[in-house]
């Protein structure tokens, strides 16, 4: 397999991780909002920030894959 193929698989694995992470954050945020609609704004803000953190780690992987491929 060429280095490009391996890089693509690496990017794919990074995306799986980010998908699971952001999915869990989204699910938990929705549940929390349903329980306490009065603090919806705060939950949304923290959910976005946490999603950004998870996404950043995945993007490190994608950037490395991009540089290799």
């Amino acid at each position: 397999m060429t280095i490009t193929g391996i890089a693509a698989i690496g990017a794919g694995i990074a995306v799986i991780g980010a998908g699971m992470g952001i999915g869990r954050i989204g699910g938990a945020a929705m549940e929390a909002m349903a329980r306490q609609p009065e603090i919806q704004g705060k939950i949304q803000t923290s959910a976005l920030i946490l999603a950004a953190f998870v996404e950043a780690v995945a993007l490190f992987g994608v950037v490395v894959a991009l540089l290799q491929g």
Partner: protein
Amino acid sequence: MKLSAIKTLFLGIFLIASFTSFSQEEETLQEELQEKHDFDPKALIMHHVKDAYGFHIIDIGEKQYSISLPIILWTDNGLVTFMSSAFDHDYYGNVVVEKDGMRFVNYKEKIYQLNAGETALVKGEDGYPTNASKPILDISITKNVFMMWVSMLVLFLIFIGAARKYKKSESFVPKGIASFVEPLVLFVRDDIARPMIGEKKYARYMPYLLTVFFFIWLNNVFGLIPIINAANLTGNIAFTMTMAVFTFIITTFSGNKHYWKHIFWMPGVPVPMKIFLAPIELVGIFTKPISLMIRLFANITAGHIIVLSLMSLIFIFKSLAVAPISVAFSLFIIVIEIVVTAIQAYIFTILSALYIGMAVEEHEHH
């Protein structure tokens, strides 16, 4: 009232989105015709994502239309300036420009100076030129630099205009451009600066946070507008690094003694743990701005790459039947990208505010 506003918003989004995809399709097509050999989507996409020495607009037949920008080089023999049109749209290193006794070529959107006596570029095995070197300093007005100046001018006009409106009006009721800017400024103040930095100290950091928010947002949006969308400014790692370095400097210099104590001698943990934690926390100072840098760069670049990849599918399959599917998908991605422009500006600002807030936080308890 509300319904019509939503309708207008959707219409606006679709207008912008359809124009963008149309122009990119056009460019992809032209690019493919120009290369005249096997279609290489990777080279095409990378060329569009990277910085260049001019705005390439459209090709009609053999004729290429572009806006050329000045090239400014600092070489061994001093300053050299010429317009990028001298290269005649060539970026494969074929056209040699002679200026002040020195020869220059544009190879893969980098300017190389040929060694004395050489007349043509020789490429080595690794794809790098063997008989040429980069000039000492390349301070050309590239399309990214140009777009940065344009966005600075636009921001300047909007905010000076808004400030004038407040100065003139008797009451503090916003009018004209000010009524557009005020909710956004209040959003940055009430939803970003106040909760993250704290009621007492937020005012000092407001100018920086507002600048970062509007500058990144505007440049993200400029990245999606046709023709000038070639300037992928926020998808340039040097640009995002500069923004992240500003946050790093502000955080470091406004850190109070509690902040530094938490880094070098964490209170409330046993001594071996303190020694163990100090290097980790020290690395943490640098990883925060680095993650800011990578996040913005990768998000915006990924958006551009996805849109161009979907368009490239038409040329990979060499079939017109794929075109409606790729146009529909890239339209969908562009609508998402419009949301992403705002979200990424928001996230950069809120994380900057969070890091500054951590540095200036007061600890009354213990």
